[in-house]
């Protein structure tokens, strides 16, 4: 078995001789994207003229389809077919895995007469144009026998149950310690449903090439999408070629596939023509997953000098009646602060809402909105600075497991952030700073998010021109995967970036787990480094065994690669020259990464600290973020620019979570109230003032051979709590129900007599 000790050896990424690692390199695919020429799934040009599909969403949340009338739709101009559960093609049974190693089961569309959620696709129209398909879809008549949905989360708390297979985590005696604590906080926070709102909705272009179903689709993970589609279509897994080259945002919402993929493939098979199907913006809200709402009770007990003696975070959340997803909003608290007596856990309510699922930093994004606000309340009660309170409760080892930290620079993030932000200018008492009509305040919060490494493979080839091609069944959901893989390849083989090609997002390429859980760069990158090391070895051996090479007979363990040149000592030649002569068809090497068997001996996370200044209009309760700073420690940074974009993007999402974002449920209908981006508000440019993210120098040698960690989810963790705490500091009102919209803040301001 492998060990983290295996990763201690030097490698080109660590040595970074040409300085490409960390460099703010422009996006590999940037020119294609900004010129609108990157073909996203729906824009891929198929081999023949396509037909267009529209899915008809269910108008009820729960019940049965009792009548279907498609006659008018079928007779509408340009219509090729109309499917409902009555005439949909045969598909694999839900949950079936004919291939025992399939990473996803069958997921049939238009399965039967049951409606399990509002927006579930219940009919499908294919027509010669998108417009004709939509017009016909509007003519499909469906009558339902409606059953009253149970969709009111707060009214259903008495049905909350322990998530299957999970128990609360207890350390010490929380109840006794909390009861005895001289200073306490005990409050409950609410976080609403959030929708992913990716810029690119889920979409597929499909056609058949003989027995092979070719699909271009927008997913975060290649293999499960390929396998699940094969199971659904009841064909061999190799008979699905799945491509996902450019993806307009995922955020967890494209970690699974939806009916548009299945229906595109089935439609293309039925008509013998390429098919394009996309979700509408409105349909995305219900037809795909969402981040579920939570109610979180935080109890903190501390000594008068600010040492936590008791800490609890208990989360109630919800998922679909037939689902299993748990928003683990309490998990992060298990590793954040020292406290000898601890209680954390989750309860789950099953509701007749669409499926709950992962969304950027599942757990932390919701959970830190409560605990980090509670810490602010505790600091105030103690008369301590919130930064100092956190430093006083910095654990030496993981407070739950007792395991050592791989590396933990939370205190440094807090201290450096406080200094850079000018935290010393904060008035501890709220409501003391005015700027015109605005009340101004500062707040801060810590950030923590786990780090992961999954198994992955990769291949590197070099051709006679000396061009390196990276191939991997990986995805780039806008995070920078293409770019960091190119940097790793260039640094490892000592070639300029312009001599690297990256091919990803294809089921025929060496498998990688895709993008999610901020494991992408570490996982895909480590496999790429391994492939690069193997290609170095292959090139060294090629040269050493080639009588025509100046390197012939040289010691291959002393080979170096720089500026497109392979060298042993002072003997060298161009890589291109060597390959052209000795391996004119090119040379390919594969590599892989596996998690180290002993990696779990360390508590491993990424950390950060957010600082925020807001202004509150005391007349209207409107809040405006003036400036925000995040300081992060997340291992070695591969690309300063793409990493910073990830972090600031997360911080902006945190601002949205604090101030704007959330979808309310109308329990009468089991549906969300906001169905487009005019109603579901995310921050716009004008909502974000001065914003910066700083990354501390760090290497985590227990993480992977490169010592890097993920940043895709760290930025959102805690960011919203910093905004909430700044609002309190500005105006003295605590709103524990996110988002902190003017109506809620106004109620507090009025109650204060402002």
């Amino acid at each position, binding site marked *: 078995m492998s060990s983290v000790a295996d990763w201690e050896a030097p490698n080109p990424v660590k040595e970074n001789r040409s300085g490409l690692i960390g460099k703010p390199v422009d996006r590999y695919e940037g020119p294609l994207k900004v010129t609108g020429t990157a073909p996203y799934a729906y824009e891929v040009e198929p081999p023949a003229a396509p037909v267009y599909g529209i899915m008809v969403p269910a108008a009820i949340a729960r019940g049965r389809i009792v009548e279907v009338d498609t006659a008018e739709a079928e007779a509408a101009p340009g219509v090729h077919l109309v499917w409902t559960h009555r005439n949909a093609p045969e598909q694999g049974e839900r949950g079936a895995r004919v291939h025992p190693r399939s990473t996803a089961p069958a997921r049939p569309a238009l399965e039967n007469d049951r409606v399990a959620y509002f927006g579930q696709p219940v009919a499908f129209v294919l027509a010669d144009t998108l417009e004709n398909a939509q*017009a016909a879809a509007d003519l499909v008549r469906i009558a339902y026998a409606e059953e009253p949905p149970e969709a009111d989360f707060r009214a259903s708390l008495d049905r909350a149950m322990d998530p299957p297979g999970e128990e609360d985590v207890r350390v010490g005696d929380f109840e006794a310690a909390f009861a005895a604590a001289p200073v306490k906080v005990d409050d409950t926070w609410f976080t609403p449903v959030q929708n992913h709102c990716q810029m690119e909705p889920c979409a597929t272009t499909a056609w058949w090439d003989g027995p092979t179903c070719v699909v271009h689709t927008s997913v975060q993970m290649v293999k499960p999408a390929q396998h699940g589609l094969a199971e659904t279509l009841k064909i061999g897994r190799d008979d699905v070629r799945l491509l996902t080259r450019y993806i307009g945002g995922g955020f967890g919402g494209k970690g699974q596939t939806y009916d548009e993929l299945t229906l595109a493939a089935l439609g293309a098979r039925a008509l013998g023509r390429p098919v394009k199907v996309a979700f509408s913006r409105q349909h995305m809200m219900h037809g795909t997953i969402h981040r579920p709402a939570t109610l979180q009770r935080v109890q903190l007990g501390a000594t008068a000098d600010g040492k936590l003696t008791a800490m609890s975070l208990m989360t109630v959340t919800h998922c679909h009646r037939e689902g299993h997803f748990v928003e683990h909003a309490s998990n992060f608290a298990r590793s954040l602060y020292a406290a000898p007596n601890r209680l954390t856990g989750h309860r789950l309510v099953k509701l007749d809402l669409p499926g709950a699922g992962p969304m950027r930093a599942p757990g932390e994004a919701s959970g830190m909105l409560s605990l980090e606000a509670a810490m602010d309340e505790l600091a105030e009660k103690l008369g301590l600075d919130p930064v100092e309170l956190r430093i006083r409760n910095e654990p030496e080892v993981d407070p739950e497991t007792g395991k050592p930290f791989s590396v933990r620079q939370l205190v440094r993030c807090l201290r450096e952030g406080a200094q850079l932000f000018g935290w010393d200018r904060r008035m501890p008492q709220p409501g003391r700073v005015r700027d015109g009509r605005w009340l101004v305040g500062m707040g801060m919060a810590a950030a923590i998010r786990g780090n992961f490494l999954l198994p992955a493979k990769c291949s590197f080839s070099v051709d006679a021109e000396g061009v390196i091609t990276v191939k991997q069944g990986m995805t780039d959901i806008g995070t920078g995967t293409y770019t960091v893989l190119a940097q790793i390849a260039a640094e490892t083989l000592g070639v300029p970036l312009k001599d690297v090609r990256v091919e990803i997002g294809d089921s025929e390429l060496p498998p990688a787990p895709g993008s999610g859980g901020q494991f992408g760069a570490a996982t895909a990158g480590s496999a790429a480094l391994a492939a690069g090391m193997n290609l170095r070895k292959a090139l060294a051996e090629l040269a050493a065994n080639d009588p025509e090479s100046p390197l012939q007979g040289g010691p291959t363990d002393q080979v170096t690669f720089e500026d497109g040149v392979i060298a042993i000592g002072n003997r060298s030649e161009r890589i291109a020259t060597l390959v052209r002569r000795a391996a004119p068809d090119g040379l390919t090497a594969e590599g892989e990464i596996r998690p180290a068997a002993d990696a779990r001996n360390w508590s491993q996370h990424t950390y950060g600290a957010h600082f925020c200044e807001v202004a509150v209009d005391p007349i209207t309760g409107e809040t405006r973020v003036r400036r925000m700073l995040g300081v992060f420690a997340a291992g070695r940074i591969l690309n300063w620019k793409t990493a910073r974009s990830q972090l600031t993007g997360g911080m902006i999402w945190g601002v949205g979570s604090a*101030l704007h974002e959330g979808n309310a449920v109308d329990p009468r209908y089991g*549906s969300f109230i906001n169905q487009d981006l005019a109603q579901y508000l995310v921050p716009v440019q004008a909502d974000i003032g001065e914003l910066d993210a700083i990354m501390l120098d760090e290497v985590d040698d227990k993480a992977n051979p490169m010592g890097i960690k993920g940043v895709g989810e760290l930025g959102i963790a805690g960011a919203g709590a910093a905004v909430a705490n700044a609002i309190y500091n500005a105006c003295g009102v605590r709103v524990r129900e996110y988002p902190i919209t003017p*109506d809620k803040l*106004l109620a507090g301001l009025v109650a204060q007599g402002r």
Partner: protein
Amino acid sequence: MRPFTYERAADPQAAVKAAAETPNARFIAGGTNLLDLMKLDIEQPSHLIDVGRLPLAQIEDTADGGVRIGGLATNSQVAADMRIRSRWPVLAQAIVAGGSPQLRNKASVAGNLLQRTRCNYFYDTTKPCNKRRPGSGCGALEGLNRGSAILGASHACIATHPSDMAVALAALDAQVEVLSPAGGERRFPLLELHRLPGETPHVDTHLVPGELITAVLLPPPPEGGQVYRKARDRASFAAGLASVAVAGGQVALGMVAHKPWRAADAEAALAGGATAEEAISAELAQASDNGRNGFKITLTARLAAAAIDETRGRGA
């Protein structure tokens, strides 16, 4: 979207004639609201008459010292006009508080006035809505009605009119000029354009079918300061929770009713020497809520009082 036919009107007379003669026809100019609603199957016109290229986009001085704003002037054009910015700044402020630059570049003045409510239940075709489907009921009444009307609503409809621009026009005593299918022109106060929902909330305005708004006329501005204030959930590109336009002693409220709401009681109180706070309280004595929109009464009171004080050089 349902199939529809399309024609480009040659002149205003032809446009109103076509509108009167073609069943289920609608005018289209910028299309920033109508096309959205058609795509969502909320509006189902069978014929569109494109008036977007008619020569009705001029902003001209009038003999009485006001201006005549062509119905097809874009929102951006009006907001950028130096006469408007200097003499009717409340109108320029209101326009730039609405939509986004892209929308304001496309949206016409007439279209802005005729935009439809943003009520979530109006937008979701699976829900009851008397405005969208007369007789189907009102989903908002006992639903998620945070944005709903607090003035002039009925048991049939609590939707609000979403325009910012119209609120300023209401405060400025604007007149609307329309061309009727019979060929005649008529002119009436903007406050008589929109109607309260009553039992027929599907009818937004008092326009006769086929009538085309050709211009909005502003009289010379009233004495005194002008200001437009809008409270919203984010800093830009968001429907208002409440808004207020003040021009001298004239006050109008926005996003609180089925139409831009001229605060006559508040104005009378102000004229009688009441404080801004007292005046707006007098206006809001008739306000009522449906639960979640109760905060709008408080918000409107504070926002309007602050705006009135601001025009009088008081307050922050």
